[in-house]
């Protein structure tokens, strides 16, 4: 079972929830926490994991053999991303625009293009606080997070409950994370920004036909617009986490919520039961 924890807006509490939910479930179930926010992975801060496996993530990019190249421009014409440009019969390659599709190699009449692997990031596997842990780390300067997330998900242990901590937003990295999840928890805050971005995130989970529920963090500040929106949409509010200095302090110092405030174990266990019930209900009706 895969549970993704996502949000449109950043900083709403995805990491807080993902780490603590995984820790609580690990007391009774086989669980793995997978940090898919490969641009800014933070789960490791709360687990201080020992990493015992490290694997590069490679994508294929073209390399042009200058001897064989006629400078005909077929590759530049074919590339839909503008990653290849021919100036004065010489090919220039802009890797940051390349999607690694391989079309340039196919269309080259003299087989002057071959594809070579380029390392764009790393997958790390380890364990922290007794919890099996996977994270992806995108190399700084690399634009494409999606291949790292895909590689990360392939490495997840299918026999365990997988908790996927998603990057913020609603773009391709978030879509890649939540697309084949069994359930998505959308974390939001009761503010105008929180509501606006919850709508956007919900549009994605609806497009992907993944069932979703909401967790409201910093509850008590702001307005009740988020709650009203959930009611209108028939979205379950699974948990409300109040704005609380003690929670903020634990987060700031890299201490998991359930470690600093063990009274949160029970509500998180209940949250998981609610997700199981929601899935049951869906299956039966």
């Amino acid at each position, binding site marked *: 079972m895969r549970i993704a924890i996502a949000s449109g807006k950043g900083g709403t509490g995805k990491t807080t929830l993902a780490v603590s939910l995984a820790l609580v479930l690990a007391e009774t179930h086989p669980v793995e926490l997978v940090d898919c926010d490969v641009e*800014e992975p933070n789960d490791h801060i709360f687990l201080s994991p020992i990493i015992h496996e490290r694997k590069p993530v490679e994508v294929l990019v073209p390399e042009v053999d200058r001897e064989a190249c006629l400078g005909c421009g077929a590759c530049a014409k074919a590339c839909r991303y503008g990653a290849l440009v021919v100036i004065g019969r010489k090919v220039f390659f802009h890797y940051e625009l390349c999607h690694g*599709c391989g079309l340039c190699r196919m269309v080259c009449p003299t087989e002057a293009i071959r594809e070579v692997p380029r390392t764009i990031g790393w997958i790390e596997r380890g364990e922290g606080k007794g919890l099996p842990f996977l994270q992806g780390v995108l190399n700084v*300067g690399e634009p494409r997070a999606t291949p790292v997330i895909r590689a990360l998900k392939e490495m997840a242990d299918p026999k365990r409950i997988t908790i996927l901590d998603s*990057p913020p937003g609603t773009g391709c*990295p978030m879509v890649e994370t939540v697309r084949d999840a069994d359930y998505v928890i959308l974390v939001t805050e009761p*503010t*105008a920004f929180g509501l606006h971005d919850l709508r*956007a995130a919900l549009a994605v989970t609806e497009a*992907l036909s993944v069932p979703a529920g909401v967790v409201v963090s910093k509850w008590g500040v702001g307005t009740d617009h988020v709650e009203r929106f959930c009611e209108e949409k028939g979205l379950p509010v699974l948990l409300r986490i109040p704005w609380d200095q003690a929670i903020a302090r634990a987060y700031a110092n*890299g201490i998991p919520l359930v470690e600093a405030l063990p009274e949160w174990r029970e509500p998180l266990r209940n949250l998981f039961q609610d997700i199981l019930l929601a899935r049951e209900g869906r299956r039966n009706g």
Partner: protein
Amino acid sequence: MVELVVISGKGGTGKTTVVGALAFLARDKVLADCDVDAANLHLLLRPKIEEKIPYEGSELAQIEKSKCLGCGNCVEACRFWAIISEDGVYRVDPLSCEGCGVCFQVCPAGAVSLKPRLSGWIYVSHTDYGPLVHGELLPGEENTGKLVTAVKMRARAIAKDTGAKWLFVDGAPGIGCPVIASLSGAHAVLIVTEPSLSALHDLKRAAELARHFRAKVSVVINKADLAPNLVEKIEMEASEEGLPILGHIPYDETVIRAQAAGRPVVEYNSGPAARAIQALWQKLSAWIEL
């Protein structure tokens, strides 16, 4: 014209709050919201939309059933797992297709065509604070970086036409393609951070990315009073990296109330956060002109 890009690494640190405040404080400016998958700046600036431009950043492959031979060449060749075969019928999954055209190339029957796809919208608006350009990515669409570039190009053109002194760009969280696109061509970068180990970790990666570009980089610490021990850590890190800290903004719930009222916080009242951002703006403008 000076182009200032506001980024953060970690999300939710207060980029939009700061940019919204700058919109009120600075004169002669154009605003661009480049966080196209969660654009929020317009919620503070009450825009009157003057133009809504469809954004077609890529193409989408389509397979014509009657022509398809079922050979599976396209499935083989597609690197994005975008071709789905169900009972011998091939179709394209629009969420996976990156519009590269490989399937079109390898199809022996001419069954594949590529159609422009609507990936989002670009809005050009009038606001009481100056022109605003913002993008909106449709749910699940690709090409965030290209849309960011399109938003920025439009904002730059307006800044040029109006002779604006400033272009303020509200960036996306993270360090991936939308952030890289928003940093391209920037003169100055402001990283909004907060006192937490997560934000500190993300600040380092964001600063490293920003240095790839030829821009001056500075930092402001938001919600600074929530964890004084970590403020110290951030200050030490910033000084080691040679990043000036241009301000400390205290946690202030009026920021959220201003948001609900749809106003920049500095316009809403003159509470602690508003005063700190005013001081930030003075330092920031002096630092940029150095």
